[in-house]
């Protein structure tokens, strides 16, 4: 992939339009455009149902059923094949879901290691070392060898965050990534995100309805009714 220039935008969206057709035709995104700089910690807020999650799925390259243009790291991803997009996600995007977190049959450690094994750029020892480091960062190293389905909801969400970090993705996206965490853990995660953005130049985009969270980010985008109403 192309090397990232310090001045290029990590993410550019132009005029995103998306419809849902079920149960009836409904325009959920009505022409969304904005840029995110490399190393920026961005939050997206807005009322429930305003289209934040829908927007994030488009940004994550998983949802390809939209109009408009999406570029990540200066690369136009609109219209690319599913295989290219999978490979791009694996290397460049870390994603923390709102609800579905982990593979229940694997241990916490294995869950964290999977994206790195898939990428295949590090040796198994390096991957395991890095996975332990990520888990320790989230204060989960003692749970590393526990089955994912044996962990509490908050622990699962933090394992999912550790997993999103493993491949050093240039962009990390989260849909309410601290939604299940108590305030102490939530603050810890926010600190981690800020460090990643400011010290390692990784770009963070988080959907949240927590205004305190939003206030601690570099910039907040507010959505209403399928439109960005403030940058």
């Amino acid at each position, binding site marked *: 992939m192309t090397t990232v220039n310090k001045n290029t935008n990590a993410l550019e969206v132009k005029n995103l339009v998306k419809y849902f057709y079920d149960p009836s035709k409904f325009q959920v995104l009505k022409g969304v455009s904005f840029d995110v700089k490399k190393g920026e910690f961005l939050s997206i807020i807005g009322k429930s149902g305003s289209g934040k999650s829908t927007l994030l799925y488009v940004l994550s390259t998983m949802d390809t059923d939209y109009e408009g243009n999406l570029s990540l790291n200066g690369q136009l991803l609109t219209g690319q094949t599913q295989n290219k997009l999978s490979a791009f996600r694996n290397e460049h995007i870390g994603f923390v*879901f709102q609800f579905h977190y982990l593979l229940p049959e694997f241990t916490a450690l294995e869950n964290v290691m999977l994206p790195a094994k898939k990428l295949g750029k590090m040796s198994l020892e390096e991957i395991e070392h890095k996975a332990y480091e990520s888990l320790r960062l989230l204060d989960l190293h003692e749970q590393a060898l526990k089955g994912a389905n044996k962990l509490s909801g908050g622990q699962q969400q933090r394992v999912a965050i550790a997993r999103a970090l493993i491949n050093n993705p240039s962009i990390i996206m989260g849909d309410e990534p601290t939604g299940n965490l108590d305030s102490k853990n939530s603050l810890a995660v926010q600190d981690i995100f800020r460090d990643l953005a400011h010290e390692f130049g990784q770009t963070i985009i988080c959907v949240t309805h927590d205004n305190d969270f939003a206030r601690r980010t570099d910039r907040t985008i507010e959505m209403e009714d399928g439109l960005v109403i403030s940058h």
Partner: protein
Amino acid sequence: MADKKKNKVNRQIASTHLTSKKWQTVVAILGVTFGVSMYIFMNSFMNGVNKTQDDLAFSNLAHIRIDNENEKNDYDPVKAVFSPATIFNISGRKDIQTETDIKNTNEIVDIMNRQQEVKDVTSQVNFSVFFRNGSKKINGSISGVDPENENRMFGSADKVIAGKWIDLNYMKSGMIIGKELAEDLGVKLNDNVNILTPDGASKNFNVIGIIETSIKEIDRSRAYINIGSARQLLGENFDYSTCVLVNLYNRDETSQVVANTEKAVGYNMETWQDANQQLVAASQLRNIIASAVSLAILLVAGFGIYNIMNMTINEKIREIAILKAMGFSGKDILNIFLTQATVIGLLGAVTGLLLGVGISSAVNQVPFKVAGLTTLPIHYQWGDFAAAIIFGIITTILAGYFPARKASKIDPVVIIRG
């Protein structure tokens, strides 16, 4: 190198799936095990039956029989001499009996022995006689044989229950007689039997052996003597016989041997396939039944695997979506589930093989004392093992392919959005 590592992740995920739902995996494997073992058992059993039947049939049936019997004599001297429109009156017309013998036996035997496909050749002088002992008189037949060649072809010596087959070689007035014929005549070893030919010749023979084939009809009516004595009795020379019998190394090559020699031989040549069409049909039918039944079993096993794979994929739909969100491609997902199917297929095939051999050898112990058998017959063939394994694995992979393809097409957003 990166590719190898990626496949390794896929294999690791597949193996986690297989081991975390053990009972499902075991049920799927057992389906294949059952199909493969039944395939092996059914086919080995049918092969055993076919082989028994063939052994029985070829204990007195040669691969090719050369004789002068079916030669049609259409020659009508009346038609040859007079034109069709002529009216004539012939009184006291008699048909002369046509020749049914081979006059140049040695030449025919030489021709057949020169063929590279030919294993054994023997000639016989067969004719009907009356067997007489005191006041008992029984209608039957004499087979004048070349004892060594006859034994090589039909294993006659093994069927002799008293005396020695090979004694026919030098005891010119010795006779080996069917077991029931001997009983009916009331004769034992070393007793004398008088025989009377249709032409009125009569001679005493000494019973030097008693033979028991698995064919009642023969045991009840036939006796064997040396072919030289038979010729003498009929007043024929050393080049005379009523039929020449030929065995090949490969009995399926009869038609090409007949085609190659027909002209030179100049007599009627009948292959075992022509003589015993029901034998061929029966073994083919048995093979068809065995294949149909075992393939049906494999098909049922295939549906079982299809269901289990489908169930697994429906249960794992969220995990599949997560894997795809992390960057696993549709091809990876297909790979993961096909790996699962292949492992199930391989394990099922191997255990099926063992179980199939187990069942077969157990059945092979079941007593069954009919027509020369002692137990139910089983005959293993490499081809059946290979086919069972190939069918087992192909069925499993096919049954796994469609659910796996469905899984590979799952749209992660639809699942994750909920």
